[in-house]
């Protein structure tokens, strides 16, 4: 506090001193010189700039200025050139020669730093002494100059004093005419001869001196090696013992870079905590995205922890179930089938087939084209297609088989020695060549090593390369799946997929943008391929691809650029594709499982999937018992693929769907049981998911209807209990449901229109226009221009007045001069006349 006060006081003292100084320097002005601008009204806080004016002084100043500039120009107005003295400081007489020199030097320096000469390298200003650079002088090799310096004044080549005295100041030719007079011509000749002689003498001495010095130099050079040798010897003798191990070590230690201070290493607990926090944050974001814009309720955020708990609960539950499934997993009673039939490769062939079956409908307003066609519900088109594809199948089958055997041959049996480094594959074929050699599990390690060897932190371009690697590995998985035509290769393919998946996940995490782009491209391609023949299930690679997407991306988002199209893809397949074979059933079931997986967190509703599961259950009902049973498309009402022919109640084989069902075509009884079992399980899961939906009963209404009609006695006990639990669930759903009538949100009452006072934040007596920044700047400039113009006009007017005054002054001056001259002439003329008159008078008198 005291300090602050002190400082304040010091500051105020300073100001006072300043005021005092200014007062002392200022002359007291006469009050008649001062003009005071009267204020109309006083405004607090406004600074007034021109309260006082000194008109006389300022006018005098202006006139003075004009005299210096305008008048000078006026005086030389008719001259085409002018003489300007550009010598530095020569006009100022106050400066001493030393100061002038300094000023000149400064000017030179300034010139060197001007824009034009900054780039003149090597032309640094060179100091000279008597025309020679200092560096040259410092070499001391030019003896001549040295000699000249110390020469006598009479030997400088100038005429000597005596001669000058005689010739120039000795009274000239007239004074020396007496003794030994030489003519002018002789004199000159003598002079020339003298000076020549002197010069020759000087030359001679110089040459001799030069010769001597050169000789001395060469002798010195002869001596140099001797001197050096001696010096070297002494040096080496002195230095060798000096380099000591200890010293060296000491020096090393001395100059070693010292350790820099780093952050404290985090303890494991802290790291885990950080990780946990990060995951929680991500989870929170995911839930936000899941809700989308649909359920924006302000109170939701407070319940976040409850949501989290909920998720954890699901997490545990799944784990438990997985354990169970592993127990079941042990045995499989399904006989191996290895026969290839046309159906298995149907999808591939349909992909190869380029013929597009899509109809282009050009429907004008009312030409009834949709009704004119042979079949309204496009049921029969499919039959035609099927015939076509089967025809092509036969031709292509042999090719596919050949390819398959070839690829098998390439596989070298398990080698545990995997090299540790791999080059980044530049083409897809290279990656294929690298990977195909190893077993499924090892392929994962190989891919991991490729990634490690080319990690993005190792080199600059690696990030792009990893993006490419991601694309290739997608293609690899895709090709494996599309090429697998028998059970073994399919199983192998899934195993490879399992091994590669975590690595592909890593790749995606490394380069998310690129990966996103690639997946979008891929997805688009796949969908277009499918849409060419939208009534048939596409290849198995699509299943793998969809599974891969569910791992790579969060499926729970309300809207996601990849997941949403995927869901459309899945639903379109489930809604449009015909179910005619075992493969179709298992394909559809796989898709339904995927749909469940996609919506397991967001618990959203996909009608196509429920419809499909209903159809599957409906297919298990024998049609003889119920004529009225209707199956919704894409199922045909009469289809009964899953109706059991033999009683399977005693069959106790595992009821988990097998991946090979996607390929095998032979319809077995156990498969029928399995399919129904899975459908029921999925229905139950969906039931749980849709518990909170208002019309959940209506959604499952037809499925309940079917479940009641399934002949239970034919199925094993587990399936029976599954059906019963499903039915129970439906009943419970019906009884527990509470339908709240929809109520629209009450409209907010509209407020009356009130005219509120317009409140301006700062009232400054001026009205500030509300305008854009550019316009304001422009207006400001325009205003400035106006002011400047006004000022310039005034200046010009005053210039004119000044010039006018000068002109009139000159005119008056010249007039006066002329008058005087005239008067003078008149006076002279009258004098002359008077003289003439007097002379005349004298003459007359004389004559008289």
């Amino acid at each position, binding site marked *: 506090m005291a300090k602050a006060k002190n400082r304040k006081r010091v500051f105020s003292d300073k100001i006072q001193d300043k005021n005092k100084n200014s007062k002392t320097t200022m002359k007291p002005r006469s009050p008649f010189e001062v003009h005071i601008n009267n204020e109309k009204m006083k405004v607090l806080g406004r600074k007034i700039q021109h309260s006082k004016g000194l008109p006389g002084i300022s006018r005098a100043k202006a006139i003075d200025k004009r005299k210096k500039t305008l008048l000078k120009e006026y005086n030389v107005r008719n001259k085409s050139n002018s003489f300007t003295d550009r010598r530095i400081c020569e006009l100022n007489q106050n400066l001493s020669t030393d100061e002038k020199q300094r000023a000149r030097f400064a000017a030179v320096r300034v010139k060197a730093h001007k824009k034009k000469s900054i780039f003149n390298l090597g032309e640094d200003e060179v100091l000279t002494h008597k025309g020679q650079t200092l560096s040259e002088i410092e070499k001391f090799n030019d003896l001549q100059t040295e000699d000249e310096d110390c020469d006598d004044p009479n030997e400088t080549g100038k005429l000597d004093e005596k001669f000058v005295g005689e010739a120039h100041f000795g009274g000239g030719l007239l004074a020396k005419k007496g003794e030994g007079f030489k003519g002018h011509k002789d004199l000159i000749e003598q002079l020339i001869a003298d000076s020549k002689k002197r010069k020759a003498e000087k030359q001679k001495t110089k040459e001799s001196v030069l010769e001597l010095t050169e000789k001395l130099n060469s002798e010195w050079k002869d001596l140099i090696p001797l001197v050096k040798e001696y010096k070297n010897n002494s040096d080496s003798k002195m230095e060798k013992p000096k380099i000591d191990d200890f010293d060296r070590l000491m020096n090393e230690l001395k100059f070693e870079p010292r350790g820099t201070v780093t952050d404290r290493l985090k303890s494991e607990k802290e790291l885990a905590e950080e990780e946990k926090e990060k995951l929680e944050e991500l989870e929170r974001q*995911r839930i936000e995205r899941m809700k989308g814009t*649909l359920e924006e309720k302000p109170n939701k955020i407070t319940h976040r922890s409850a949501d989290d708990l909920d998720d954890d609960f*699901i*997490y545990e539950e*799944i784990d438990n*179930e*997985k354990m169970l*499934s592993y127990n079941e997993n042990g045995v499989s009673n399904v006989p191996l089938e290895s026969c290839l039939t046309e159906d298995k490769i149907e999808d591939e062939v349909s992909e190869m087939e380029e013929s597009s079956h899509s109809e282009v409908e050009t429907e004008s307003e009312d030409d*009834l084209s949709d*009704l*004119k066609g042979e079949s*309204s*519900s496009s049921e029969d088109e499919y039959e035609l297609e099927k015939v076509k594809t089967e025809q092509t199948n036969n031709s292509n089958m042999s090719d596919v088989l050949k390819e398959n055997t070839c690829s098998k041959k390439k596989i070298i049996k398990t080698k545990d020695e995997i090299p540790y480094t791999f080059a980044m594959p530049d083409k897809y074929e290279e990656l294929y060549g690298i990977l195909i050699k190893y077993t499924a599990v090892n392929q994962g390690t190989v891919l991991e090593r490729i990634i490690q060897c080319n990690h993005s932190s190792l080199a600059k371009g690696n990030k792009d390369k990893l993006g490419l690697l991601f694309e290739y590995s997608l293609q690899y998985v895709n090709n494996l799946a599309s090429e697998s035509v028998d059970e073994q290769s399919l199983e192998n393919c899934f195993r490879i*997929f399992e*091994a590669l998946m*975590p690595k592909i*996940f*890593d790749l*995606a995490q490394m380069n*998310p*943008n690129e*990966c*996103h782009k690639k997946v979008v491209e891929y997805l688009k391609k796949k969908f277009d391929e499918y849409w060419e023949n939208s009534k048939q299930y596409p290849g198995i690679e699509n299943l793998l691809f969809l*599974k891969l997407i*569910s*791992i*790579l991306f969060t*499926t729970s*988002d309300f*809207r996601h650029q990849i997941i*949403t*199209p995927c*869901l*459309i893809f899945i*639903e379109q397949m489930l*809604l449009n594709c015909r179910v005619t074979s075992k493969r179709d059933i298992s394909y559809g079931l796989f898709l339904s*499982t*995927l749909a469940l997986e996609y919506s*397991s967190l967001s618990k959203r*509703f996909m*009608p*196509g999937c429920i419809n499909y599961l209903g159809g599957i259950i409906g297919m298990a009902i024998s049609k003889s018992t119920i004529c009225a049973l209707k199956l919704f*498309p894409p199922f045909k009402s009469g289809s009964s693929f899953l109706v059991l022919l033999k009683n399977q109640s005693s069959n106790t084989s595992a009821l*988990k*769907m097998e*991946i090979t069902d996607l390929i095998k075509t032979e319809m077995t009884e156990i498969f029928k049981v399995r399919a129904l079992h899975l459908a029921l399980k999925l229905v139950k*899961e969906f039931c749980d998911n*849709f518990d909170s*939906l*208002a*019309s959940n009963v*209506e*959604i499952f209404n037809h499925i309940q209807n079917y479940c009641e009609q399934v002949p239970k006695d034919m199925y094993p006990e587990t399936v029976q209990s599954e059906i019963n639990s499903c039915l129970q669930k439906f009943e419970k759903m019906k009884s*527990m*449901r509470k*339908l*709240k*009538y*929809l109520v*629209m949100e009450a409209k907010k009452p509209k407020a009356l229109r009130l005219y509120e006072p317009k409140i301006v934040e700062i009232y400054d007596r001026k009205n500030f226009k509300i305008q854009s920044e550019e316009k304001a700047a422009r207006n400001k400039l325009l205003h400035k221009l106006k002011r400047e113009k006004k000022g310039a006009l005034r200046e010009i007017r005053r210039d004119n007045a000044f010039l006018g005054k000068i002109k009139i002054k000159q005119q008056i001056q010249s007039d006066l001069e002329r008058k005087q001259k005239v008067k003078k002439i008149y006076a002279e003329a009258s004098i002359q006349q008077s003289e003439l008159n007097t002379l005349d008078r004298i003459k007359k008198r004389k004559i008289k």
Partner: protein
Amino acid sequence: MQIYQNTEVKLLCGNEDSIFVFDENVTKKVLNKIWNCVMQWEHTKATHKQVLIVLLERILPHLEKPLFLTDFLMDSLDVGGPVSLLALQGIFTMIQMHNLDYPDVFKKLYSMFEPEIFHTKYKARLFYLSDLFLSSTHLPENLVAAFVKRLARLALIAPPEDIIIICMFIGNLILRHPGLKCLLNRVTDTIPNMDPFIMDESDPVKSNAIESSLWEIQTLQHHTLPTVSKAASFINNPLPSVEWDITNHLNNTGESMFDKEIKKFTKQVVLSFEKPKGMSLNRGEKVLQYWKI
């Protein structure tokens, strides 16, 4: 088609020698006669369709008493499938131009809304026609309510592109008949556990729809697709003053929806953050749970 051609050949170009003179009145008379006969024939499904197409496109304007067609059209309406839709179109023109009054037409239309329609080619036309039929504001409210409820029920199993159309359609119907707002806004204390609406009732008036509420639309707000969910959320906000234009959406297919979604540009790239174990997700893994791989 063949039948038509034969009759034409006989009447118009009977003799090659005689010069054909077109007399409109005579031709019209003959045409009427022929078509009265044609109505009486028994048709197969294919010919029936053809007859209807020709009738609607060419013959109808030239008939003297088109109201005689009513019975034929009504019979065709019972056939089902595309034939009934054609008949429906015919009946619509009859009602519009010739002042036909046929009370059962709405019942017929009601019965045409079955789950199968979503897999037919003419679903767009059906929506278009039913929009026209139900455009009158003088229809009884319980009838329109039945349509609304039935459409909503169908939307529960419909493909996404159709759900959007249905949502708009329902919105339009409610806009036309402000009395139907009770489907969206009913303030009572009762909480039933069953929907009062009877889906299996064939008579729309008896379906008790006006007592119900549009829970289906509420359910559809949880559809997997954001566009559908958005379309269904119209019930949350106050209704607009102008109807939705469904004609733009009638030709939507799964492909167009897919294209729209995939082209939707988002800057945000969202990857999942939990590393998978093998090919199984950490949460919500279902494929491995149900499939032996």
